[in-house]
């Protein structure tokens, strides 16, 4: 899904939320669930796959996130921001997955990532059409630490507001700003290294 299409979906979602989408979900309305599922499914999966760098893990976490959403739907407050709520749960699911396997950040980084990779169903033409910058960005993102990656993903990729992202990450707005700043700097360094010719890297 392109960025502009995603923005349109989000705009539609905002209107729907104003019309009482949260209220409908609280009553267990299947149609309301379908709207939310269609709007956020791919975005959440992209977030999880970039966070975990593994498609299989991301699919498991996606399922857990949606099941948690359905289980807690009745308890949502009327002013719940669905995007922030879903990303928070998804991030917590990922953190829980890391804890369950007693994996520290360094060890997670050692796992062979299956992301970035050719998406299933993606034709060679589609793969070739992805810009070189996009591929480099994906590689650079995958090289960042989990803390840097999650803040960049929430704010820059998933377009959460700083306050929503801070709430998702359990940070104060000031701490978020600093972490975002550091993450951007590290991403810039990674990108610069990606650009450097192999001889320069070796030297």
């Amino acid at each position, binding site marked *: *899904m*392109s*960025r502009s299409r*995603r923005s349109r979906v989000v705009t539609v979602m905002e209107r729907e939320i104003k019309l009482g989408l949260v209220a409908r979900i609280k009553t*267990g309305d*299947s149609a309301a*669930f*379908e709207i939310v*599922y269609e709007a956020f*499914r*791919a*975005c959440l*999966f*992209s977030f999880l*796959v970039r966070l975990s760098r593994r*498609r299989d893990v*991301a*699919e498991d976490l*996606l*399922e857990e996130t*949606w*099941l948690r*959403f*359905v*289980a807690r*739907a*009745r308890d949502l407050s009327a002013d719940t921001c669905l995007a922030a709520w879903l990303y928070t749960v998804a991030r917590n699911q990922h953190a829980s997955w890391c804890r369950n396997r007693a994996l520290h950040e360094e060890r997670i980084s050692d796992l062979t990532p299956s992301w970035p990779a050719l*998406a*299933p169903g993606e034709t060679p033409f589609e793969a070739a059409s*992805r810009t070189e*910058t*996009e591929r480099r*960005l*994906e590689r650079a*993102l995958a090289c960042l630490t989990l803390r840097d990656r999650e803040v*960049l993903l929430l704010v*820059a*990729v998933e*377009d959460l507001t700083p306050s929503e992202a801070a709430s998702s990450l359990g940070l104060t707005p000031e701490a978020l700003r600093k972490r975002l700043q550091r993450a*951007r700097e590290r*991403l*810039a360094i990674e*990108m610069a290294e990606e650009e450097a010719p192999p001889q320069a890297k070796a030297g």
Partner: protein
Amino acid sequence: MNFRDELVTGLAGLRTCDADPQRVERIRVRCLAALEAQRRRERSRRPRLADWPRRLELSAVLGLSALYLAVAITSSLALLR
């Protein structure tokens, strides 16, 4: 536009991807089933909650009947003495 701005724009332009279609469908089915189960539980709980006026009426009728009976017995006993 400096390099950092380009990075942020680049990040915002990263495309989304989706899970395996079969998995997507499985999640949808599981969630809808969970919602349906919640609705069923809610429906089965509702009649018990809606029952209270009838229970109140029954209690009032029984109480008044018992009071009437007690008064009647007391009056009968008073007459016999």
